[in-house]
């Protein structure tokens, strides 16, 4: 629970954006600089992937954006009223059944029990976990756990959805299926997405914009607009234009790593 010296004020983000980072830095108490001079602007309804070398501050970026940690310099504009957030692992509460896990955030937000149940049931069906409502997480596969985790965030109907490398631990086939599912939620619900990943094809496939971060302390060093229309088809991965964009992102990433 980070206490903050200044309480945030309500102020529209510059340029009508959904999320704005203006010269943001984040120095940890031990002196580690997680972010330094980071500028980023995300329009409402954009889906932005962030790639960058390991340890460059991608998770820190999301933690600052979500308010889990308070940045130490610069300014951040973000609407946190309806925030979705998935972690690298599914982070299910092992002592709760799937349905009660999916209902957790609504419970914390004080939704009435009947509504919680109804929405949880609906989201469980949406992510294809029908029939597992009363299972405990222990019994689910890695992909199913991630689906439950997605359902839990979707239940709040997020306006801004942050993903911290959610599918890094999954096999490729499950991962690609979940990519399509997230795209489907995105096109249906129209949230603003920030998606951290180590996989360049995943970043290009899912996003309307890919952002490349430098080595620590992380800054945004390159941005690529991805012109493909939504919803996207899996065969997109084999199009020459897709390979060309992936190659460019990859090159920028290599440049970022080498400094």
């Amino acid at each position, binding site marked *: 629970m980070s206490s903050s010296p200044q309480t945030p004020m309500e102020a529209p983000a510059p340029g009508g954006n959904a999320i704005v980072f203006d010269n943001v830095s984040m120095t940890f108490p031990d002196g580690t600089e997680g972010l330094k001079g980071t500028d980023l602007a995300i329009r409402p309804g954009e889906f932005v992937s962030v790639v960058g070398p390991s340890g460059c501050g991608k998770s820190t970026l999301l933690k600052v954006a979500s308010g889990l940690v308070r940045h130490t310099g610069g300014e951040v504009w973000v609407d946190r009223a309806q*925030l979705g957030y998935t972690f690298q*692992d599914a982070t299910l*509460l*092992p002592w709760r059944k799937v349905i009660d896990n999916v209902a957790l*955030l609504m*419970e*914390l*937000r004080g939704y009435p029990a009947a509504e919680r149940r109804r929405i949880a049931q609906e989201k469980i069906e949406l992510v294809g976990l029908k029939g597992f409502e009363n299972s405990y997480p*222990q019994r689910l596969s890695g992909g199913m756990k991630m689906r439950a985790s997605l359902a839990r965030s979707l239940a709040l109907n997020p306006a801004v959805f942050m993903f911290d490398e959610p599918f890094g631990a999954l096999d490729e086939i499950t991962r690609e299926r979940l990519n399509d599912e997230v795209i489907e939620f995105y096109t249906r619900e129209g949230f603003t997405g920030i998606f951290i990943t180590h996989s360049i094809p995943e970043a290009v496939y899912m996003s309307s914009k890919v952002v490349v971060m430098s080595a620590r302390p992380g800054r945004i060093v390159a941005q690529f607009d991805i012109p493909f229309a939504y919803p996207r088809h899996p065969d997109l991965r084999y199009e020459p234009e897709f390979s060309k964009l992936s190659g460019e992102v990859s090159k920028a990433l290599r440049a970022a790593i080498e400094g």
Partner: protein
Amino acid sequence: MSEIAKKAKVEVYPPQPVPTPPTLTKRLILNLMPPVILGIGVIIAYALVRNSLPPHRQFLMPSAGGLWELALGLPDFRRELLARTGVTIGIALTGLAVTIPTAIAVGIIMFRFYTLEKAIFPFLVALQSVPVMAIIPLIQSALGFGLAPKVLIVVLFTFFAIPTTLLLGLKSVDKNILNLFRLQGASWWVMLRKACFPSAAPTLFAGLKISGSLAVIAAIVSELFFLSGEGGLGQLLMNSKIDFKYEQMYAALIASSILSISVYLLFNWLGNRLFSHWHESSEK
């Protein structure tokens, strides 16, 4: 390549049929056989040691016949044993009723306030290392001969395991689970109730199991210096030793072991009922 292939030893592996779940009787046998066999071993060893004793010292180890004729076979003694067991249970439970809520509260307070953890923990360790037996006369002089000194002794014995295990459990809750709660603006109290406490419950239960069985031992020890009045098994142990009624002393020992084991099994059973569906530590 081909040389490796030539040396390769190919074996055929037959399938293993899907195991049918063991029946209740089979499970009982599987669970009861090992302790029963070991118990028989102990009895045989007891008999061997007893037979090797010179006859004038055999009173130290009563025979099964003696145990029956001079103790367990006597209806009066059986009634006394039962009543005393009740007294011992009463002392142990009263002690636990004091220990468990206070110890849990201390654990939670240490978890909430880091400075208090730093302050309290050394004293918990110190308390644990005090030889309680040695200070019983002191407790007696301070609190007299009623229930209070005995309950205090039980508390001294049983306290340590609970705040320590609880604190360990509370601290090892998944950080991202806490982040999840923080993102919804959950209060510390809600996080404690819905994240930390459930996550710590199996660890706490391990502590409760230890304290539970210690409570019986402590209740018996608490009486060793209180020999008047209608006491429990501890008093019976001392009095029968003083009167050279070794058979009755052994009967009291057996009763107290059964009591300790029952408490342990009770907590075990409860723990399995509560946690087996999600926690790896519990047996299926």
